[in-house]
């Protein structure tokens, strides 16, 4: 362990020795593997989540290559089923659900709240190891032959008739669910109990509100899918029957229980990304988020309403049409809070001092793409049109717009926004912008054609299709390669910045937030003395009181001002 004393922290000695921070305080493998520091755990999660994203992306590449030709290129029917299942399972359970909470949430939330760590640091580490174990199990399942049921595991195919590694894959998803639950538990208690003195709920940054809502959904929803999937495994291995029609069971019951979680799961994926967007837009417009309370309440409303709309995934089953009507109406209503947020973000930028940094470009991408995704969701919420569009590529395009255009963009925006804080280095802004534009263009080229081809009747999960759809598929595959390049670029320039990037000050974006009070990278224990918060969450001054200076003076972006002696307190 380090032998530095309190006085040493934050001081650079004659510019010779780098100040002690969470990255260089200890250097052994053991100190990383057994760390309880939320920041180190976030970095480890980043590596793991990136591995998962790469795997899921490779599967996506295989799908797109396969689909360029109407009769399929190189995959058999079985193999194709396994590839798209792998893509779904890995991307959903191992990237989309954990990415923003476990990487950005873990890193930024305690800093943002003015806490020294999460409420349960050891639980945080356990959460990471459980995730890693789940990822290994998932990999083993895929390498060991894969699973061909689709990520939705519909019974009775998955519980009785499939001949693939269903049980192992389900167990991987089950274990990953526990990782998610532990993270959510940590966040809930941290947000309730460990805000800095003076930080009431309505002085909290909106990212924290988003993390709270996400964590509530995680706690209430994940266990349901866990037990449902466990029942499928029991049915498969022991022969118990609960979803089997031959003995009077109901496969639609499986779907009810599965979608009871999996619909709120999409809000687990998108709410954290929305939380990131709050921060990025406020910092890059130098303006407080318009309608803070509305955004906060909308976040909670999405979490609550998200639990009562799951039936819209089941319009084409034997579900009662009267219940379908109810779900349809509720699904229209759940779009309203999301729309409120989009309007609020747009209004935030109005008359703001907008800077087109790379993370702001990602945020713009989010605004546009999530809106398209959300609006196309309305076609699917409407019972009548859904009968035509369900299980076609229209659905595929819709959810990729909200999940990739939403969550992945939000994740990249946050990664770029907080990268200087996490690593103490600035990345190449030009490459950041190039990557953002490539992702945006590539994404649209990939998925806009899929709306068309889905409407024309192309079913999802098929790799043979009528030749008249080929044009759209070829466009889509072309776009996928551009998108792939766009996603790969950050891996290079971000890693490159670790050694060669310009050193970052503590507040390179001149943003408002407690995390920007700390050094870049922060000290292991974040704050010496917890700050006492007496200001609003996004207190950017519009008029320049200091001749062009828009950040309030309580948020210095000069390193010298942060060197505190042990007895100095950050009070305003």
């Amino acid at each position, binding site marked *: 362990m380090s032998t530095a004393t309190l006085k040493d922290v934050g001081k650079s000695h004659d510019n010779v020795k780098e100040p002690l921070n969470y990255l260089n305080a200890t250097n052994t493998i053991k100190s990383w593997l057994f760390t309880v520091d939320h920041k180190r755990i976030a970095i480890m999660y980043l590596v793991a989540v990136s591995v998962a994203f790469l795997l899921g992306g490779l599967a996506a590449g295989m799908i797109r290559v396969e689909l360029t030709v109407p009769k399929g290129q190189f995959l058999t029917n079985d193999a194709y089923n396994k590839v798209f299942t792998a893509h779904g399972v890995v991307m959903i359970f191992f990237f989309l659900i954990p990415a923003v909470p476990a990487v950005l949430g873990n890193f930024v939330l305690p800093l943002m709240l003015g806490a020294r760590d999460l409420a349960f640091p050891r639980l945080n580490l356990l959460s990471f190891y459980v995730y890693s174990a789940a990822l290994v199990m998932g990999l083993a399942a895929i390498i060991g032959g894969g699973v061909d049921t689709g990520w939705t595991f519909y019974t009775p195919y998955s519980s009785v008739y499939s001949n693939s590694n269903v049980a192992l894959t389900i167990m991987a998803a089950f274990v990953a669910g526990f990782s998610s639950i532990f993270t959510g538990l940590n966040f809930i208690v941290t947000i*309730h109990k460990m805000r800095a003195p003076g930080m009431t709920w309505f002085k909290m940054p909106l990212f924290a509100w988003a993390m709270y809502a996400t964590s509530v959904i995680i706690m209430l929803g994940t266990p349901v899918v866990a037990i449902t999937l466990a029942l499928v495994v029991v049915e498969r291995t022991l022969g118990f029957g609960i979803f089997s029609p031959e003995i009077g069971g109901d496969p639609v*019951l499986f779907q009810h229980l599965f979608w009871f979680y999996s619909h709120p799961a999409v809000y687990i994926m998108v709410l954290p990304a929305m939380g990131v967007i709050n921060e990025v837009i406020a910092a890059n417009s130098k303006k407080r988020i318009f309608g803070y309370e509305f955004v906060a309440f909308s976040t909670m409303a999405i979490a609550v309403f998200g639990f009562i709309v799951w039936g819209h995934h089941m319009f084409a089953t*034997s579900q009662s049409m009267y219940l379908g009507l*109810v779900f349809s109406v509720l699904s229209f209503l759940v779009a309203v809070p999301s729309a409120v947020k989009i309007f609020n973000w747009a209004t935030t930028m109005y008359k703001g001092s907008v800077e087109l940094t790379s993370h702001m470009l990602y945020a713009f991408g989010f605004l546009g793409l999530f809106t398209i995704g959300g609006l196309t969701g309305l076609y699917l919420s409407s019972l009548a049109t859904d009968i035509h569009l369900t299980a076609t590529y229209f659905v595929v395009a819709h959810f990729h717009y909200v999940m990739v255009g939403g969550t992945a963009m939000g994740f990249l925006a946050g990664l770029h926004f907080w990268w200087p804080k996490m690593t103490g280095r600035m990345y190449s802004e030009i490459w950041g912008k190039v990557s953002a534009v490539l992702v945006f263009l590539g994404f649209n080229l990939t998925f806009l054609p899929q709306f068309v081809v889905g409407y024309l009747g192309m079913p999802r999960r098929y790799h043979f299709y009528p030749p008249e759809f080929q044009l759209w598929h070829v466009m889509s595959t072309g776009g996928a390669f551009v998108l792939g390049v766009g996603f790969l670029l950050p891996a290079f320039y971000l890693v490159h910045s670790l050694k060669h990037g310009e050193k970052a000050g503590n507040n390179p974006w001149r943003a408002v937030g407690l995390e920007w009070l700390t050094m870049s990278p922060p000290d292991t224990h974040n704050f010496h003395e917890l700050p006492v918060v007496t200001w609003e969450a996004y207190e950017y001054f519009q008029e320049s009181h200091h001749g062009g200076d828009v950040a309030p003076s309580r948020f210095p972006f000069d390193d010298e001002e942060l060197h505190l002696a042990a007895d100095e307190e950050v009070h305003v």
Partner: protein
Amino acid sequence: MASGHGHGAGFAPDGAPIERISHPKLSLYFGTYFALLGLLVVTVVLYFIDLSKMWHWVGWNIVIALIVATVKALLVVLNFMNVKGGTRLIWLWAALGFIWVLLMGIIFLDYQFRPDSTAWEWQSLTDRK
């Protein structure tokens, strides 16, 4: 070192915490236990009595059994698990789970409102073939 803050409910003017967890006396535990035993007796006795004879509805047995079970669970939650002496936050999370699980009851409506078909043979009261 900062003085104790009431992180659950904010500061009190003198800096003391607003809410604190209090712990019950031994007698409460024993009292609860005997109440639970008594309710167990009620539950089992209820099984052997057919209330539909007295109160003209077949559903009374299950309703009363569930009420009794709920009372038992409440006794355990409030007393053994010390929610009665806990803070508001603890009370919130204790209540939340049990309320939320009822949400899944919406799934029932699907089965209630499906058009009757031969696929689902609901067993009627006079089902004797």
